[in-house]
């Protein structure tokens, strides 16, 4: 197997003998959109942070494009759950900070051109010179997405990017994200709690179970199942529930979360 991203035998242990998750193996191809879904505490964010290089696993390896992931890199853009914009900088300066870090030898005009292009991509050109405190939650998250895209990483990692947004805003930004990803052929790995969000966006959905105590001893969490999305790639949020196979897929995932994911806590 020579996948673009390869995760082998990943495990993370905080309490000795009781790893949060163990033997996590998965991989995906360039241009794929992969969602991971599971209850709180199953270790989704830890896996994402290991992929980002922000955290280290207790055992196992991650390879991207044939090279081992060891520490953070500009090759992997991260959209943080709490947008993580720097409040003392305007939208323009926030994204310019990322662009200047990616291409230190670019002149100011070239940096600015790149910044304006990606701000326009998320539809925020009118707010480019505002500070984050003057923006709504949805707008801030859009800026976070624009910042991650602006460095043109090989892979984009999103940690529940829409978790804190209201349903309407979430829908709009999901549509935008889908459009941008289709257009740029971006490889994306995303954490979500929202089944419909996963079905709309992902080509493949990883279902993750929590670690739990069973009569035969402790069983660590891990990837219980990988579901390939059978719905056509040109699906839209509005037409999703009219597509054949949608309800079967949705029921399957919900059943997994309710009965098999073992959210003990």
């Amino acid at each position, binding site marked *: 197997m020579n996948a673009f991203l390869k995760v082998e035998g990943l495990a993370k242990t905080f309490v000795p003998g009781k790893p949060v998750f163990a033997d996590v193996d998965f991989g995906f191809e360039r241009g794929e959109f992969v969602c991971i879904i599971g209850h709180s505490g199953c270790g989704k964010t830890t896996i994402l942070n290991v992929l980002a290089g922000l955290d280290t696993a207790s055992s196992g390896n991650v390879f991207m494009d044939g090279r081992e992931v060891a520490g953070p*890199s*500009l090759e992997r853009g*991260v959209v943080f759950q709490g947008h*993580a914009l720097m409040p*003392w900088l305007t939208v323009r300066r926030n994204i310019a900070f*990322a662009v200047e870090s990616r291409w230190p030898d670019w002149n100011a005009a070239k940096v600015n051109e790149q910044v304006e292009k990606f701000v326009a991509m998320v539809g925020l050109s009118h707010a480019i010179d505002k*500070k*984050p*405190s003057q923006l709504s939650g949805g707008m801030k998250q859009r800026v976070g997405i624009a910042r991650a895209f602006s460095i043109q990483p090989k892979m984009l990692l999103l940690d529940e990017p829409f978790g804190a947004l209201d349903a309407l805003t979430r829908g709009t930004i999901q549509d935008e994200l889908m459009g941008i990803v289709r257009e740029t052929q971006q490889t994306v790995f995303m954490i979500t709690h929202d089944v419909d969000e996963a079905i709309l966006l992902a080509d493949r959905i990883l279902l993750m179970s929590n670690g739990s105590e069973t009569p035969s001893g402790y069983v660590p969490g891990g990837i219980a199942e990988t579901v390939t999305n059978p719905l056509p790639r040109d699906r839209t949020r509005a037409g999703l529930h009219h597509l054949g196979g949608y309800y079967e897929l949705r029921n399957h995932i919900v059943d997994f979360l309710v009965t098999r994911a073992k959210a003990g806590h």
Partner: protein
Amino acid sequence: MSTQAHPSLNLRAGLVSLLILAVLLGIWYAATLPSGGAGSAGGATAGMTPEQIEYAKLMGKDVGAASASGSGKSSGFPTLGQVASTFAQQLANPFYDNGPNDKGIAIQLAHSLGRVGLGFLFACLVAVPLGFVIGMSPLLYRALDPFIQVLKPISPLAWMPLALYTIKDSSISGVFVIFICSVWPMLINTAFGVASVRRDWLNVARTLEVSPMRKALRVILPAAAPTILTGMRISMGIAWLVIVAAEMLVGGTGIGYFVWNEWNNLSLTNVIFAIVVIGVVGMLLDLMFARLQRLVTYVE
């Protein structure tokens, strides 16, 4: 209505302030009013025989003046009028220099501000970089904490003998005392501000592979700037308190020495004048740092 509420509140507060000032000055005026003078309109000499008057004069009591100001038993505390004329005199000529013991208020202030500025500047140069290092390293934070906790509560004036002995210059010793008292709040606040920069921002810098220097200047410094400025503001407040005491101790020049010198001259009007000047200058220094603080504060 609501648009008028704001200025009218300020206006009313200002009026109340003026009223309080007027009452305080009124009490002062009444308290220093010559007693007994009004009752016996003829003055203190009225009930005295010529022999008694002559005796009083021989004892060094200025009977004529006493009756002129009507003061049978004046407390000696300066009246409003006397203080006002001292204010006018001092402010009319703030730059005069009649030798080491008689200089204008502006010259004395300049000496004090110079010492405070110099000591404060050195404290900044030490505290901000050191605070940065301490804030970034949990090991150093803990290792240096006992030293900071012991050194911080020491009255800066307690260092004065050591400073005088080693430096052998009273003026530079004053600067050292200012340095030692301003360094702690700045050091502690810088370390705290740097240590509590949000993890998210540091993670952004990590994923962008930002160099340590760029991370320090572009992420940590602006994130910690409001806390650092708060430390500087506290330091400046303490420095201005300490300089008066330090200059009383070492003498020579400065506003603290001026107060002590005027006390030795028994010129309470000048002491009162100096007290007011110290207060006003301290307020202006604080306002300056409040302005700086507002410049670097951000809303999350």
